[in-house]
C-alpha cells in the first residue's frame, strides 16, 4: 500500500437541485465503526448516488483500523457521505448522513449530527468494538437512536437481548437486525428508529 496520503473524491456530475415542492428536509445519521456498512446502507436506500470524499488509508493508520474481517476495504470515509430519498407525497426528503467511524473525527461528528432527528448505530457482531466509539458519541449527543446489527454472510446469530446486555443499552432502545445491502431491510431499520424517536418525543411531552 502506498504510504502517501492520496485524496480520492467523487463529485456529482450535476448539481442535486431540489424540487420546489420539497418543503421538509429531514436528517438522519447513520453511525458506526469503520467497515460496518454505513455507506452500503445509505446507498441501498438512496435514490441519489451517495456522494463522498474518501481518503486512501495510509500505511500508518492500518494498525489503528482493524480490518481483519473486511480486508477488501482499503479506504476510510472521512468527509461527507450522504444520500437522499424523496418520500411520498413528495414534499419531504429524508437525508441520510454517514458519521465518521473513528473518534479522531469528533469534530466531523458534531457537524454531521447537528440538526439530526435520530441516529441508526450500525454494528458488526463479529467485531462489536468497532462501533463502541460511535455508540459513545451518539449516547452523549442525547439524540434518539436505534441499534442495527448488519448481517454479514459469516455473522453468527446473536439474540437482541444478549446484545442489549453486552452493549449496556436502555431497555427501551430498539435493537434490530438488518442487511445493509437490502433496500427493504434497511428501510425496516430506519422505520424502527423513527418509531422510537416519535415514542420518545411523546413520552417527554407527557411527563
Amino acid at each position, binding site marked *: 500500500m502506498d504510504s502517501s496520503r492520496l485524496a480520492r*473524491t467523487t*463529485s*456529482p*456530475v*450535476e*448539481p*442535486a*437541485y*431540489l424540487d*420546489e415542492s420539497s*418543503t*421538509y*428536509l*429531514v*436528517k*438522519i445519521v447513520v453511525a458506526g465503526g469503520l467497515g460496518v456498512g454505513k455507506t452500503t446502507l445509505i446507498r441501498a436506500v438512496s435514490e441519489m448516488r451517495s*456522494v463522498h*470524499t474518501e481518503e486512501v488509508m495510509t500505511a500508518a493508520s492500518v494498525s489503528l483500523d482493524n480490518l481483519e474481517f473486511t480486508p477488501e476495504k482499503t479506504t476510510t470515509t472521512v*468527509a*461527507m457521505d*450522504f444520500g437522499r*430519498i424523496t*418520500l*411520498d407525497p413528495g*414534499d*419531504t426528503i*429524508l*437525508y441520510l*448522513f454517514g458519521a465518521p467511524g473513528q473518534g479522531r473525527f469528533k469534530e466531523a461528528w458534531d*457537524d*454531521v449530527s*447537528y*440538526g439530526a*432527528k*435520530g441516529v441508526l448505530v450500525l454494528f458488526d457482531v463479529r467485531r462489536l468494538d468497532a462501533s463502541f466509539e460511535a455508540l459513545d458519541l451518539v449516547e452523549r449527543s442525547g439524540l434518539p437512536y436505534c441499534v442495527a446489527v448488519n448481517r454479514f454472510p459469516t455473522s453468527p446469530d446473536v439474540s437482541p437481548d444478549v446484545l442489549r446486555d453486552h452493549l449496556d443499552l436502555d431497555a427501551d432502545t430498539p435493537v434490530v437486525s438488518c442487511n445493509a445491502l437490502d*433496500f*427493504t431491510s434497511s*428501510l*425496516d431499520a*430506519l*422505520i424502527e428508529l*423513527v*418509531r422510537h*424517536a*416519535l415514542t420518545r*418525543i*411523546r413520552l417527554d*411531552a407527557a411527563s
Partner: protein
Amino acid sequence: MNARRQAPRTVPAYLATGGRSATHRNTYDQLTRLSRLGEYVPNGLDSPHLRLLEVLAGGTLTIADAAAFLRLPVFVIRVLVGDLVDLGVVQAVPPADLPDVDLLERVLNGLVKARENDLAR
C-alpha cells in the same frame, strides 16, 4: 464529468474563505436551502463566491449538496453563504419549519409507503 472539475483544486480550501473558518452566522445546518435572490452579481467577488452564485443560478441546493458539487468543505460553504447573504444575493432557508413530531410522522409514513411499494413490485 467535465474536465474543469476533474482538475485538482488550485486554491487550498482555507484560502477560499480568505482564511476564515467560521461565519458569524453559526446557524447554517447542512440541509439549509440556498437560492439566488435576483440576478445581480456584486463587483469584486472572488472565484469561490462566484462559483457558488453560478451554481445557484440553476436552482435551489442544500449546503451539503453545494459542498459536494463544488468540492469544498461544508465549513467553507457556510462562510461563503454568510457573505452572500450579507450582500443580499443569496437566501438561506432552514431545512424545515415544523415541530419534530410532525416531521418524524411524515418520515414514518413515507418510509412505510416506500416499503409497501417495494414489496408490491
